[in-house]
């Protein structure tokens, strides 16, 4: 067997060397894709400020980038550096929250200080320092609390009580509470615009088989629910080692299985804007793409339509082609973000780039 993680290059792809995504990706009819920004090394989680700035976190670089539009020109700048795996970002009332591996910090009034941002100040650091699954996606919920995952410190193991969970804290770092347990590693979550329920993606374990277990899309309906790790995967598959004497019946089943080893990462609800009406309140999530599988899967964006009761009605492959027919990636989607102009941004940590998806006539001449 010859399987290995695909390492994103540390140096971003130069603008003139970016893959011809408009030619190589397949989109739903009526949609267009173009380069939004290049030179955003190892682009991961994204957030947009009230004034329009796009902030981009990173897992392998020590930097947070900002993409600023000024007089029709787009500029990429570093707003924080010297950080350890600043993968996760959240933004609220002008304050940017940054999640490093074991620390949450913030920069107030960030959009007023993009040229000379102050150093981030500490919010919360009562977090484990494990490297495996230590990088974080974070978000602020409708309850105005900051949600922070703590991944399992391993591929498979009996995690300590402090791990394999999603926590929430008040924005001042107080009042920690565990919201969900049995979560191996979630790198994307969002709240249903109507029911306000938390949905999250979760990455399944490696080295069982090519086709099991699948990654998960989950829904939290009650605080403290258990989602199966390490003994039950994909809602119905007992772990060969940790499943002995256990049952999947005691855990929450995913609302959707999202493919074996597919690395389902960033997800957001679409609440309205430039896309056709059928997408309102649908989930979009990025499948970064597999490594622990001979024939790779993923490298796409999936749309999920929900029933009124919050279960899955149907799915649609929204964009495919980041994974080429030769089993190699031309890019790897990490996070999806709906910008204020109604377009969708997709971060790509392989090229160090951000792509933009719009519906209707292309607005920009940047499309090749």
């Amino acid at each position, binding site marked *: 067997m*010859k399987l290995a993680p695909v390492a994103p290059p540390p*140096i971003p792809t130069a603008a003139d060397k970016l893959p011809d995504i408009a030619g190589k990706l397949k989109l739903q009819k009526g949609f267009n894709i173009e380069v939004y920004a290049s030179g955003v090394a190892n682009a991961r989680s994204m957030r947009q400020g009230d004034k329009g700035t796009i902030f981009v976190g990173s897992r392998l670089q020590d930097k947070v980038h900002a993409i600023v539009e000024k007089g029709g020109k787009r500029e990429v700048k570093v707003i924080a550096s010297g950080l350890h795996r600043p993968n996760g970002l959240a933004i609220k009332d002008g304050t940017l929250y940054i999640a490093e591996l074991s620390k949450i910090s913030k920069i107030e009034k960030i959009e007023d200080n993009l040229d000379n941002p102050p150093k981030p100040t500490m919010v919360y650091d009562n977090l484990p320092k*494990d*490297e*495996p699954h230590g990088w974080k996606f974070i978000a602020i919920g409708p309850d105005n609390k900051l949600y922070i995952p703590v991944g399992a410190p391993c591929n498979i193991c009996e995690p300590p009580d402090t791990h394999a969970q999603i926590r929430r804290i008040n924005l001042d770092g107080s009042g920690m509470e565990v919201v969900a347990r049995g979560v191996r590693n979630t790198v994307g979550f969002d709240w249903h615009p109507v029911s306000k329920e938390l949905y999250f993606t979760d990455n399944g374990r490696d080295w069982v088989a090519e086709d099991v277990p699948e990654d998960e899309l989950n829904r939290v309906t009650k605080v403290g629910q258990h989602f199966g790790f390490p003994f039950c995967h994909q809602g119905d598959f007992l772990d060969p080692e940790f499943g002995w004497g256990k049952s999947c019946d005691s855990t929450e089943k995913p609302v959707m299985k999202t493919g074996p080893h597919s690395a389902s990462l960033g997800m957001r609800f679409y609440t309205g804007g430039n896309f056709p009406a059928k997408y309102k309140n649908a989930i979009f999530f990025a499948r970064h793409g597999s490594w622990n599988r001979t024939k790779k899967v993923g490298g796409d964006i999936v749309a999920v339509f929900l029933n009124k009761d919050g279960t899955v009605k149907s799915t649609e492959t929204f964009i495919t082609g980041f994974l080429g027919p030769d089993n190699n990636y031309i890019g790897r989607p990490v996070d999806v973000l709906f910008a204020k102009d109604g377009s969708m941004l997709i971060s790509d940590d392989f090229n160090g780039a951000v792509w933009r998806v719009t519906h209707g006539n292309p607005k920009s001449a940047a499309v090749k």
Partner: protein
Amino acid sequence: MRTFFTALVLAGVLATGARAATYDEKLATCFACHGEKGISETSEVPSLAGMPADFTLIQLFLFRQGTRKVEIMNDIAKDLTDDDLRKLGEYFSKLPPPQASGDAPDPAIAERAKAAIAKHHCASCHNPNFSGREQMPRLAAQREDYLLKALRDYKSAQRPGYDATMDEVIRPITEADIVDLSHYLARLR
């Protein structure tokens, strides 16, 4: 010995003064510790000959960024440009890799090492002959003291990986495994 090399290399780096060092001067700095042919004769310093280009590039990037902390390498790497990283990676990948000489591995240790290799899927990434590929280093005929150091540094989290693969893989690997693996891989032909 180590202090001597540190002093020597730093002297070389500093000798360029305010003038930016050329690529050739930067390359020459490597040889002091890693050997003129990329085969190290320095304790706990790896041979770089035959390393996959991506591996060397990524490690230099980590030294430059400070994610991987080795003082002398952090000093040397801080002035490397992106182009230097690419060229140094290419350069060492084209040198003939080290060959194991001396005694074959102890048979009992080799058996234990092979079992650990199978259990932890080492060859899936590093290749069955441990030549390495892409971001994963060549391990065959690497210096034993360096293999011990590298594995122990991962185990103690002193050395965070580029992505977290080795941090995850090392978790169930014991000190006894580390000793066996280093013995075996250093003598692999």
